[in-house]
């Protein structure tokens, strides 16, 4: 199975981003997704900067894909999306149907995780428009994935969200701005203070979610490192690892060894544990609530009595 570094979902300072991808060029990932997908107000890097990073990664042998916004509201958002689509150098991951329209019938593209591909009918439609890879929605279980793949058009690649805090919801409202009693239009770019998002707990102390501007993520970190054989059997060809502020390279290394079979699942779990910024979860994969962890020895998200419905 191939490894893919997902798009950076947080707002980091420009130098931090550049340093991150300079390091990533040396990691054993096959594919790197680049670009701002969450908020059009995040402009530490311009498209030209992303393209320059992409060229360096391509020179290091990586497949580079540029991702589009997960939510388009304004004309400026549309223009930015078209600039990505027409970048002229790299394949594009479409994260809404405006991007699909712009990419359709013009060559291969990636159908991103926000396109809601829950069935082979929709996947076939996208393949007919030029999608050569799709990223499953985070909610899809192993059995669901296998069912889509069983009826999928021949040759299309399947990617799953294998590691990271789950992007669960998208809003027009910015919750980081709201926390700071600011409006989105005058947000003071506070997301930059939270390199892994802003933690949201329940009133009884459970770590529940993370606010990442207009995006809401799980507090727990989805980790499928213990179920890679099943993922392969279900049809997953690429494993997406979502960047975090620390130890992403170490996470990649563990997944590389686990995917190649050099590490048994239990060993992989032990090797991965110190690099997890929070509890692990993998409920979605098992057809359960996403916050559930089937991973032996991993702390539950909330206190034990609350972890299962």
């Amino acid at each position, binding site marked *: 199975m191939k490894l893919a570094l997902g798009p950076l979902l947080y707002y980091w300072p420009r130098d931090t981003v550049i340093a991150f991808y300079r390091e990533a060029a040396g990691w054993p990932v096959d594919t790197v997704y680049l670009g701002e997908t969450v908020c059009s107000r995040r402009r530490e890097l311009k498209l030209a900067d992303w393209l320059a990073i992409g060229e360096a990664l391509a020179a290091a042998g990586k497949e580079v894909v540029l991702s589009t916004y997960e939510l388009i509201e304004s004309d400026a958002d549309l223009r930015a999306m078209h600039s990505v689509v027409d970048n002229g150098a790299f394949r594009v991951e479409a994260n809404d149907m405006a991007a699909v329209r712009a990419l359709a019938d013009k060559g291969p593209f990636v159908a991103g995780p926000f396109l809601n591909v829950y069935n082979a009918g929709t996947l076939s439609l996208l393949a007919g428009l030029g999608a050569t890879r799709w990223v499953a929605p985070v909610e899809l279980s192993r*059995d669901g*994935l296998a069912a889509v793949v069983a009826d999928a058009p021949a040759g299309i690649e399947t990617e799953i969200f294998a590691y990271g805090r789950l992007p669960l919801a998208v*809003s027009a409202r910015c919750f980081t701005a709201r926390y700071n009693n600011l409006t989105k239009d005058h947000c003071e770019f506070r997301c930059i203070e939270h390199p892994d998002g802003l933690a949201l707990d329940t009133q009884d102390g459970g770590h529940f979610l993370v606010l990442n501007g207009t995006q*809401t993520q799980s507090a727990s970190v989805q980790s499928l490192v213990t179920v890679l054989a099943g993922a392969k059997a279900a049809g997953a060809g690429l494993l997406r690892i979502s960047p975090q502020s620390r130890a992403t390279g170490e996470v990649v290394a563990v997944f590389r060894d686990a995917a190649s079979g050099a590490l048994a699942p239990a060993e992989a779990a032990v090797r991965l544990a110190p690099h997890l910024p929070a509890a692990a979860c993998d409920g979605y994969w098992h057809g359960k609530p996403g916050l559930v962890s089937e991973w032996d020895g991993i702390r539950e998200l909330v206190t034990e009595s609350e972890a299962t419905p």
Partner: protein
Amino acid sequence: MDQVITLPQPVAAARMKLVCPAGTPPALKVAVDNGADDVYLGFRDETNARNFAGLNFDDKAIRESLAYAHRKGAQVLVALNTYPQPATWRKWQAAVDRAADLGVDAIIVADAGLLAYAAKTHPQLRLHLSVQGSATSHEAINFYHERFGIRRAVLPRVLSVEQAEKVVARTPVEIEVFGFGSLSIMVEGRCALSSYATGESPNTHGGCSPAKAVRWQQSPRGLESRLGGVLIDRFGEQDHPGYPTLCRGRFVVNGDTYYPFEEPTSLNTLELLPRLQAMGVKAIKIEGRQRSPVYVETVTRVWRAALEECARDPQRFRVKPAWQEALAGISEGRQCTLGAYHRPWK
């Protein structure tokens, strides 16, 4: 509440349609009787996004409701607005066939593959793009128009009035916007918070924060509401405990306990009606298939009256206190907001 108004004749061409919810045949009847142009409903299964016990329509109820609505000049729209699931996706195709066979006036669909199927198999069937399709720009809406011939699209509750106006001006597709009801904080079709806590979400099971995952518990710190075991809120004696919808919960961020997403509140855009009419919005949607016939009756009566006044004389349109009072009585949290239509909400 029992008052049935006599409908004036349609006025200007700009008159917007009123689209009302029906979870049951009695709700459909009061919607039609009180002036709904369109009534939307769902089958009794996960093919619609209000898949709740005791709600929705079997074939006999749909046939009777269709006959009743058509007799009174109203149209019936069937919501097939969830995402067909991997192993059972052909069930959604069968639901499209069923709607076509029943002779409904349109189906409301979110899934692109299902729209493709409907357009190919039933070219005469009118297609509306559901709000769950998350089409937030004219380019996204035009994609569905070019590929599947959709005739109307429901805008997600994420755009400001200015943004919505630009969408309307740049698509041949009729635009329907939400006027009143429960306010979605997240982009419709793009929220998995419910399945994260409970295993079921609108996209996968046709419902958010399902009742079977709700637990109420009296604790020394107050009445607690939980969803899938996760503490959503805690209420003192002064509070009015609300249903534990995940994004209406009170949580803690850096020691502050507050509503990080939104207070319990309803969307109410009555005051925007002249603007929405002038920009060319074709239809106003009322949320609430899960609500009672009394809710449907009240909201339909008020909005019918408001739409008529707006069509007759938009310049002089004023929101009547009696309308607001009637709507406040049935609103979630008894508060109302313009939501994203008013830009600072974001």
